[in-house]
């Protein structure tokens, strides 16, 4: 359970993790409404990465990661897609 502070580090590690184990990696968004905390979590059952989104600024980051996972997971092959 590692909370990463830097978005570029988190983002590149997530991509590496997914391409290493595309069938094992899962991604989740946790939203706690009481304090507005949004946590991203990506794990392959061995490594676990977490990133806390800023409630006011990080909508674009959430959109990027959602789009990337949806596009990659629903394609026909496991080949790397352009980032």
């Amino acid at each position, binding site marked *: 359970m590692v909370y990463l502070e830097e978005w570029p580090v988190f983002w590149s590690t997530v991509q590496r993790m997914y391409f290493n184990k*595309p*069938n094992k*990696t*899962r*991604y*989740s*968004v*946790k*939203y*706690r*409404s*009481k304090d*507005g905390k*949004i946590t991203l979590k990506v794990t392959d059952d061995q490594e676990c990465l977490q990133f806390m989104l800023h*409630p*006011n600024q990080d*909508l674009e980051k*959430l*959109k990027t990661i*959602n*789009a990337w*996972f*949806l*596009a*990659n*997971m*629903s*394609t*026909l*092959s*496991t080949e790397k897609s352009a980032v």
Partner: protein
Amino acid sequence: MVRLGPDRFIKRLSSLYEENKDQGTVWVTMKRVGEGKKQPKESACLIRATDGRKKISCLITSSSKSVDFEQQLNSLMGVHLFGAATSQQKTRKQSSSYKKKKTT
């Protein structure tokens, strides 16, 4: 676990966020799943959502469908998680009233 179509999933997820607006936590999880043993090369994106009580899920199979779904999901999360208004006018109104409240 209720397996829904993409449109119904978006609606149910929206109501799930709405139900947990003041208190509670909502998880949305995505994972890649193979589409049966006969065609191991084909995969789909399984999306699940839960608030700890209700569970819903949806299977996105082709990348063409995933683009529409992604846009709907992103705007939904924008509204519920970030309070992003659908129109710019609404944002202005909200922000001005917020400022007034703060100053008084």
